[in-house]
């Protein structure tokens, strides 16, 4: 990070992801209420909260898979554009990992990982495949490269999904409940990959119920309830000394079962 291109200098100063006064309604339901959130470069932010608190919607709004009605979201100093080419370009810099993996069912594991780099980044097939195999190696599924998604376990599929997102060399990675659809014994293999990513300095926004991961890897925990950010602090103070009653209540329910 010693030499920055001229265009990047300005952007490099501010937060990588910034949400200002974000509001969203599903019909009458006010799912995101006046959200302000900034995520710095290299920061790992874990978003937790009860179901229906709006945390998944927040995650999906950051790359505009959900549109918002009010407020502003910017990534690397650039405001999220309306639907179109500019939005596609911005999304290519934002990696996304879904709860249900969403690997392309008709493509092999290798093709899943090379699709973005070849179609969006216009990389050559050979370069994209070399990089894809490295990434698959790294997440521990290199041996499955020629299989189809349905032939892999959930944990393997989710690790492929992470490799697919990383192949785009994203500035930030969004994880929308990445382990919620997994059998318990597969959760750790996915969390291990995520933890090592966090250690390497990837900027991450992670919606999860895995409190162990939050303690281990997060720089900051954001607690949401009823569409609002109720609390935002470092993991140690959040878990040992939550400020709001709602957070205390939530933690008592999930930590002592």
């Amino acid at each position, binding site marked *: 990070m010693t030499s920055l291109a001229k265009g990047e200098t300005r952007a490099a100063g501010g937060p990588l992801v910034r949400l200002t006064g974000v509001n969203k309604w599903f019909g009458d339901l006010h799912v995101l209420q006046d959200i302000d959130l900034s995520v710095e470069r290299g920061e790992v932010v874990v978003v937790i909260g009860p179901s229906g608190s709006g945390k998944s919607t927040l995650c999906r709004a950051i*790359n505009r898979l959900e549109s918002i009605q009010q407020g502003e979201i910017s990534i690397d100093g650039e405001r999220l554009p309306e639907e179109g080419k500019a939005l596609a370009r911005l*999304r*290519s810099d934002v990696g996304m990992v879904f709860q249900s993996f969403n690997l392309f*069912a008709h493509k092999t594991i290798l093709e899943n990982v090379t699709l973005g780099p070849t179609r*969006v980044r216009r990389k050559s097939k050979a370069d994209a495949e070399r990089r894809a195999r490295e990434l698959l190696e790294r997440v521990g599924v290199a041996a499955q490269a020629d299989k*189809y998604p349905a*032939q892999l376990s959930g944990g393997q599929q989710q690790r492929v999904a992470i490799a697919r997102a990383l192949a785009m060399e994203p500035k930030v990675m969004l994880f929308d409940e990445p382990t919620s659809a997994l059998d318990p014994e597969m959760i750790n293999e996915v969390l291990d990959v995520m933890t090592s990513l966090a250690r390497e300095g990837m900027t991450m926004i992670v919606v999860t119920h895995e409190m162990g991961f939050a303690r281990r890897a997060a720089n900051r925990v954001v607690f949401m309830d009823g569409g609002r950010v109720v609390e935002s602090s470092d993991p140690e103070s959040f878990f040992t000394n939550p400020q709001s009653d709602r957070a205390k209540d939530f933690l008592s329910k999930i930590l002592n079962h």
Partner: protein
Amino acid sequence: MDFLSDNIDLLWGAFLTTLSLAVVSGLCALVLGTVLAGMRVSPVPPLRGLATFYVEVFRNTPLTVVFFFLVFGIVQIDLQFPSRFAAAVAALSLYTAAFVCEALRSGINAVPPGQAEAARALGLDFGQTLRTIVLPQAFRTVVPPLGNVWIALAKNTSIAAGFAVADLTAALQRLSNANADRLLLVFAAIVAGYLAITLPSAWAIRVIEKRVAIIR
């Protein structure tokens, strides 16, 4: 067997005409129907409206009326197809495209939304998402209904006989006038011609369906 040997050239020519009507119209309808299906799921409201209008017009108009319009109707606005065959291909393609579109659209709706979301999240635009992720999966699920559309088209080509195209049904009219004493034989020959197109198609559809199936 002198009936067959006397008329083999006529029958063979009629068979080829029916086959080429079906194949050429089928290909045109597939292309046009795919474009229409893309329009019907696009985020641009005028495109959606236009495609919906098209589908409703052609799906709900009798094919014979479409033929009448393209053969005689457009003469009023100083247009004419170079041949009756071309007019028949146009009528069959325009009509069948509406059904291809609806079959494909049902396939598109059957692709889990997460597939398109993952593609968009990678930075693919709407067209790329449709072409590389959604349509290839949609085509696989609509092989059986598209097969039905194809077989219906193969049989619908018979309407062209009413508009001076020398297809199998036209041959039926001609031969039954000349061979009133051997009508059963004439019918058998004509039906065999249609079956020679539709039965292998039904078999091919089953093979394709098995081959392109995707496991989920």
